């Protein structure tokens, strides 16, 4: 079958989709967006969390056909999504991105995949990379280790902060309880979400008492 939907603000068309294919498979293997991760493929770990019409879902549990005509935001589009939300005063629809996706090629080529560089100035300041507040906070707080859970956690945390800009620790734990992490012990993830919330509240002009 053919599926038409929007990914990170860009209209996409997937052809020859087998009816059993998940949204996760289509994103990863057909759209060239491997950011959403394939850790359990049964909705238990949250590594594949994306927003479907603004709502966080495990994309492994969504049949590709279900997204016909709908809007998807993945971790690849998160920075642009957050930027537009900040500009336009909140956008939970998932439709605000426009050009963030790199869709059109499949997977990650070997050439693209292998090089990383250590840049102390960049990694200290985030200079040169347009990241959303939650992405920057994950880096700064040391919440990324192996990083496999990170994309799903970022999408979930970003949505939680959109709903609840000033979460208590119990709120954060409840909000992220669908996302497993095996490396961090979650403490630095808590730190990252607190940091993102604090930075956001510092940049949002006070409405006055």
């Amino acid at each position, binding site marked *: 079958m053919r599926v038409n939907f929007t990914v990170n603000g860009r209209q996409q068309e997937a052809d020859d989709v087998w009816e059993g294919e998940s949204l996760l498979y289509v994103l990863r293997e057909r759209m060239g967006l491997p950011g959403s991760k394939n*850790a359990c493929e049964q909705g238990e770990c949250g590594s594949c969390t994306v927003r479907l019409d603004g709502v966080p879902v495990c994309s492994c549990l969504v049949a590709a056909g279900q997204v016909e005509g709908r809007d998807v935001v993945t971790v690849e589009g998160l920075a642009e999504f957050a930027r537009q939300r900040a500009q336009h005063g909140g956008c939970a629809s998932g439709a605000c991105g426009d050009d963030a996706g790199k869709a059109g090629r499949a997977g990650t080529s070997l050439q693209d995949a292998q090089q990383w560089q250590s840049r102390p100035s960049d990694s200290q300041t*985030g200079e040169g990379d347009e990241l959303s507040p939650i992405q920057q906070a994950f880096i700064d707080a040391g919440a990324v280790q*192996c990083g496999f859970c990170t994309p799903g956690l970022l999408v979930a945390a970003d949505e939680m902060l959109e709903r609840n800009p000033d979460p208590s620790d119990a709120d954060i734990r409840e909000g992220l309880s669908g996302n497993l992490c095996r490396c961090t012990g979650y403490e630095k993830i808590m730190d990252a979400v607190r940091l993102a919330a604090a930075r956001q509240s510092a940049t949002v002009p006070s409405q006055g008492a």
Partner: protein
Amino acid sequence: MADTRTTGIPFNVTQGSKTKGGIGESTLRPDGTLKVTGEFAYSSDMWHEDMLWGQILRSPVAHAEILSIDTGEALATPGVYAVLTYDDLPTDVKNYGLEIQDTPVLAHGKVRHHGEPVAIVAADHPETARRAAAKIKVEYRELPVITDEASATAPDAILVHEGRDDHHIGHVPHPNIVHRQPIVRGNAEEAAKKADFVVKGEYYFGMQDQAFLGPESGLAVPSEDGGVDLYVATQWLHSDLKQIAPVLGLPEDKVRMTLSGVGGAFGGREDLSMQIHACLLALRTGKPVKIVYNRFESFFGHVHRHPARLYYEHGATKDGKLTHMKCKIVLDGGAYASASPAVVGNASSLSVGPYVIDDVDIEAIALYSNNPPCGAMRGFGAVQACFAYEAQMDKLADKVGMDRVAFRQLNAMEQGTLLPTGQPVDSPAPVAELLRRVQAMPLPMERQWESSEGSDVRQLPGGLSNTTHGEGVVRGVGYAVGIKNVGFSEGFDDYSTAKVRMEVINGEAVATVHTAMAEVGQGGITVHAQIARTELGVGQVTIHPADTQVGSAGSTSASRQTYVTGGAVKNACELVREKVLEIGRRKKGTYHPAWATAELLLEGGKVVTDGGEVLADLVDVLEGEVVELEEEWRHRPTVPFDLVTGQGNGHVQYSFAAHRAVVEVDTELGLVKVIELACAQDVGKALNPLSVVGQIQGGTLQGMGIAVMEEIVVDPKTAKVRNPSFTDYLLPTILDTPTIPVDVLELADDHAPYGLRGIGEAPTLSSTPAVLAAIRNATGLELDRTPVRPEHLTGTGPA
């Protein structure tokens, strides 16, 4: 500037500034941005034009003869390119293994555990491959299963490996025992007579899974020279290579391996998983083949932590001094050896824990059985022992009538204490101090679920299930401490290699560090860049991708990589620095006498004297020259433990951590909530404090997982795995996780680079017994197994 130099006037116009981003700073991960944007390529993200998908058919039974395999229908499926079985293996090398080559690439004649690979398929869509695999017809004749020590060593027991001829066979009492290590020191029988109190205990430690999130996966690409390029997530590229090449019948230089993004490891990627299968399919079809396990397969595709039965006896005088210890530790290694012999060595040599006991009688064995194969996991044999000896310490302290922490401190080892192997602990061993520190941390508030705004059920056992509002909830506090060895022990040549290059790129001095170290999330690449900055005084460091084009780095396990590969990087940098200074002397030596007379350093992009005088810019020294060298680096050698007495300097270094757990238990429903799990650990030197704390918190949580929820459940009648999924194998979520305050102590180990200690594993040891001790403290129950389940707390089910 040039004028100043040509005059020969001393060039000391500025003071050298320390290089930013060096060791001791919490520099951020070089791969962090890629990981938060989704661009970082994990092994399951690899893609190649015209790529096929591989699929493995696994045994549905634990122990059986294979009577026949019919692949005809599978091969005839449209879209299928190859179906391979044992008969298709290209050489006489049909097994692999870390120490004993007893693991079949594909089952031949027999399957020995549930989920063993029997056949492999390559097809153009993963679903096609799965469906084709399901069409392979295998006829099994089931055999009785061996599942414990009794069935393994019964007189008429079927041998799991008939015709074993490995080097351990001469020292084991039964062929179904992989390895046995006794350790005898002093005279436990005699010493026992001095004991005023004796406690005995039998403990069971459940089978834990590494449960790394990134599934086993990789991409094999056939090359024109008949070789293969393999992109894979692993812990040790060169160990994989040594096992893969002979099976493929290729020289090692025709199997080129490159590390792709690793989604966690924890020991579970020490053994091969899909590596050979992907290469075989790629070489057979002439096309790139990608294999990605699903989570179900992942539970069958890697070894687990050894479940263990531990029998302990300790004695103490009425003054609280330990008199003796006897123990027997039975580890279930499952169907294949994997790392079992080394796990036995660790479990036995660390079985007394961080205590002074001169008279011991120890025996550890690992079984062959038809249970899932077990091997390396964070803590590696020391974890199981720590669970048991710490339970014993509490029991004995209670009998003596001493405070449990004070009892431990009274008996704590110190620098110079001999291990039961006779090896002295010749670096700081701050066991009593770590206990003091963890005890000194403020306790979390009582009834923390209550606030001025009412009660928050989320903070109670049972959480949002709303099962209690505090009635029936009791609190307990427990302590534990442990000792873990760092690095590979018992005479293993545990070296690493680093290639370091220095040159000027775009007007800036740049260092490149190339090692084969597997970055599995621990942050090794961050630390390598910090070391290079510190030693070479450059700001910009490029970490070259890990591959087999450089010498071995050894395994990313045993808390060893920062020590050993970090040491190799440091060593290589020092040698590069010498060469750079030689060039400097040649080019600039005439300008200032300090070039010949002073101790020179590279700092902040400049050559400086130890007094801080700047002699030259690195850019000017290096201009037009490239300095590059590759060096191996070794730590102090070790020796194997004597097979009769267990004596020998078998370990490289030790790592110590202590925990205090605070739990709340709903005694009516048997639900446990861990409120806080505080840790104090000696890290020698924190090269990257942020990463150090992250490692300690992660290790602590894995220890908590086995205490209260994690266990692979194997049916004792059929040896089948009952819960191979994230639905049924329970992992701690952020809701299950307590706060984990960490107190880091830095007592340098003079033998190690920068004084550092391996840190990754120690926090996994004491976390588990601390939680158990806290639950016992809350409930008054004995609780001698992990994980603790509700039925153990309510007395409503079997142990």
